[in-house]
């Protein structure tokens, strides 16, 4: 550990200064985290709606804190200038292989529906959508 660095474990509740954990990774004290919130409870609720997750009040609070810490951590990427860097979406070999469009399987409705939580004849059954 480099000397002079403040350790995360030693930071007080009021501490806003930079500190580091035993690995030398920069961490924010809880006080510093409160001072610069990355994500609000309202945003957490919005994202949960997008992700179709019903969260309890406790989960919302916990996720807000966890996401806040992760978003602060990924901020370190802003140390890098990537203005002229192309993004990598895939690392496999380039191109999409072509093949003949041949039918290789058979209809198997019963096998496909065997795992359905609710079915009626050859249909998945869901709550009424249109009145």
């Amino acid at each position: 550990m480099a000397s002079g660095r403040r350790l995360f474990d030693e930071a007080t509740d009021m501490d806003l200064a930079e500190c580091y954990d035993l690995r030398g990774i920069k961490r924010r004290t809880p006080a510093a985290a409160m001072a610069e919130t990355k994500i609000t409870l309202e945003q957490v609720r919005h994202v949960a709606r997008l992700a179709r997750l019903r969260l309890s009040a406790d989960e919302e609070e916990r996720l807000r804190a966890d996401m806040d810490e992760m978003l602060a951590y990924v901020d370190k990427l802003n140390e890098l200038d990537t203005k002229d860097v192309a993004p990598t979406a895939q690392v496999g070999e380039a191109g999409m292989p072509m093949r003949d469009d041949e039918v290789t399987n058979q209809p198997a409705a019963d096998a496909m529906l065997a795992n359905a939580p609710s079915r009626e004849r050859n249909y998945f059954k869901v709550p009424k959508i249109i009145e």
Partner: protein
Amino acid sequence: MASELNKLMIAEASAMLRRREISALQLTRDCLERIAAAEPKLHAFITVCEKEAIEQARQADARLAAGDNDMPALCGIPLAIKDIYATKGVRTTCASRILESFVPPFDATVIERLRSDGAVFVGKTNMDEFAMGSSTENSAFGPTLNPHDTGRVAGGSSGGSAAAVAAHECLGALGTDTGGSIREPASFCGVVGLKPTYSRVSRYGVIAYASSLDQVGPFARSVRDAAIILRTLAGKDHRDSTCSARAVPDYERALTGDVKGLRIGVPKEFFVEGMDPEVEKSVRAALKHYESIGASTVEISLPHTGYAIAAYYLVATAEASANLARYDGIRFGLRVNAEDNIALNETTRAKGFGAEVKRRIMLGTFALSAGYYDAYYLKGQKVRTLIRNDFERAFQKCDLIVTPVAPTTAFKLGEKMNDPLTMYLSDIFTISVNLAGLPAMSIPCGYDSKHLPIGMQLIGPPFSEETILRAGDAFERIGATKPRATAI
């Protein structure tokens, strides 16, 4: 336990089966007996397939009795399968409540290939839910314990497969690796774990976590055994368009023991403060051993290593949030009934997913959401390019890169469960390899003073599995690291 055939290596057992010195049935029964004895302490399996395994063993024996010389090496060999692979007619849970009763109507491509070789499947192994974790503590069915010390984790996410191989419950196993999920548990349990090049092995029928990073690979008790399994797994599959059409070499033939002239790169960024000194000492000693058999070492630099975890947690969670959208309570898996369809989706997912899965879906959804895409997801993809470029430059100076697999040996159960960021940091040495799509292998290189295994990571350029396996096998031949018996 009478004969203890379960302790054989795959290569040995395969030769004995061909000579009819042992039967697949005996071999399988010894594995099942060991499973029955060890599981209460270990919990490496979610589902044990006793009846199916006995039947597969009988079929393998019939095939071996008919005796053609081209018999696949895996005919009659008992393997364990991570519960992330679709197995026809056998429950596949991904260690999640949401798939607790899901029985796939089809086999994953690699399962189909192993079946046609005559392999025997003793069961489906435990894992972190949807492969999200580094300790197998995120399983909805409880953690797997480390066979070397049951107060410690087996690593993750493929912890069940690593523990099962280490504890001789099977002769080899399949895992998957998205950020280190084969290599880290292999290191913690003292076995060999290989993550092949991205696109080397088909992922058809493997439940998706982060599709641009996920890769299939074997666990074994020797490098040779890992090479034997990889031969069957690898190769083109028209059902996975990302899978490479390149010819599959006979990996076992690459194991010549000769590493003369091999240039081993040692990245200065990987030996950082915070690393367990015993781990560093062990890996440095292994490098000396390589020099003693004719390889050379050269210091290299991978300057963006410190950014890999941040880039990974943007890219992987974004992909996960999209992949896991399919668990909606409508077509398969858990359903929690509610007043309308959206409420049904929301309550099903709330009940079906565990805390870590929810955390990653939330982070990924946020990283992809309007107004944040450029700042987070796109930024992550750009940094991914910088990490790939680091490796490309490094491989101009060396043939292989050697690093520790993890900064520490197996940690204690519960130690990191309340601090997700610290848990994520245990993948610091493995994660950049997935971002760059490279092949890498974890092999045992020593033990610490607590008798816990230490793993060394060999990383190569794309499609250099033969070089990695040759170097790993050469290290085993030196015999510097004698495998130790597990505690249970």
